[in-house]
């Protein structure tokens, strides 16, 4: 399978704490994107990091990319109960121009 993987599969933290998850992928990429999915809803785009970028920020979200290790990390600071959702990384595969999603990390932020 060409599908990447997020780690951990599930994460439970207290409100105010920081949350970190990782994404590993297998192919060469054009970019890597992160999406959020609330229960019963569609995915919402959070951030896109290009293959020539190493770090990107958006509000409380920080994403890094290490193409030599084929991995990306996602950090959200000062978590809130409203951040409870599943988070997916998606590889923008350069050769095929496909966007391939990982299996996701389920984040629970306890109030």
């Amino acid at each position: 399978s060409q599908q990447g993987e997020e780690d951990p599969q599930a994460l439970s933290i207290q409100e105010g704490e920081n949350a970190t998850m990782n994404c590993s992928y297998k192919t060469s990429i054009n970019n890597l994107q992160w999406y959020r999915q609330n229960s019963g809803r569609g995915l919402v785009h959070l951030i896109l990091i290009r293959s020539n970028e190493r770090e990107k920020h958006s509000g409380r979200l920080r994403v890094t990319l290490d193409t030599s290790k084929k991995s990306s990390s996602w950090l959200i600071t000062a978590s809130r109960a409203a951040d409870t959702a599943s988070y997916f990384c998606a590889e923008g595969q350069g050769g095929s121009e496909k966007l391939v999603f990982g299996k996701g990390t389920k984040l629970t932020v306890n109030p």
Partner: protein
Amino acid sequence: EAGVAQSPRYKIIEKRQSVAFWCNPISGHATLYWYQQILGQGPKLLIQFQNNGVVDDSQLPKDRFSAERLKGVDSTLKIQPAKLEDSAVYLCASSLRGRLNSPLHFGNGTRLTVT
């Protein structure tokens, strides 16, 4: 801007029956995608349209699934006949351009249960 619209929201059918899903993308978005999301997994691309032409349908089970995009706007995805393993959420997404640097906008999906 209005989001991606999908209908129906839920559908329950028996195996071997047929079903159709409808998607209306964001106005002006040239690229339309259908994804299948099985419970606990990430979305899997079934088919990608650029305007009304198919760009990628390599993972579409063509013996039972079909899709079309009329006039490069709305799209329908059909399953005939359905199998138990088709139970999943079917997500439609659109993007402004077909290039990878354009984020996808998703609808809320159609949850299909095959009994």
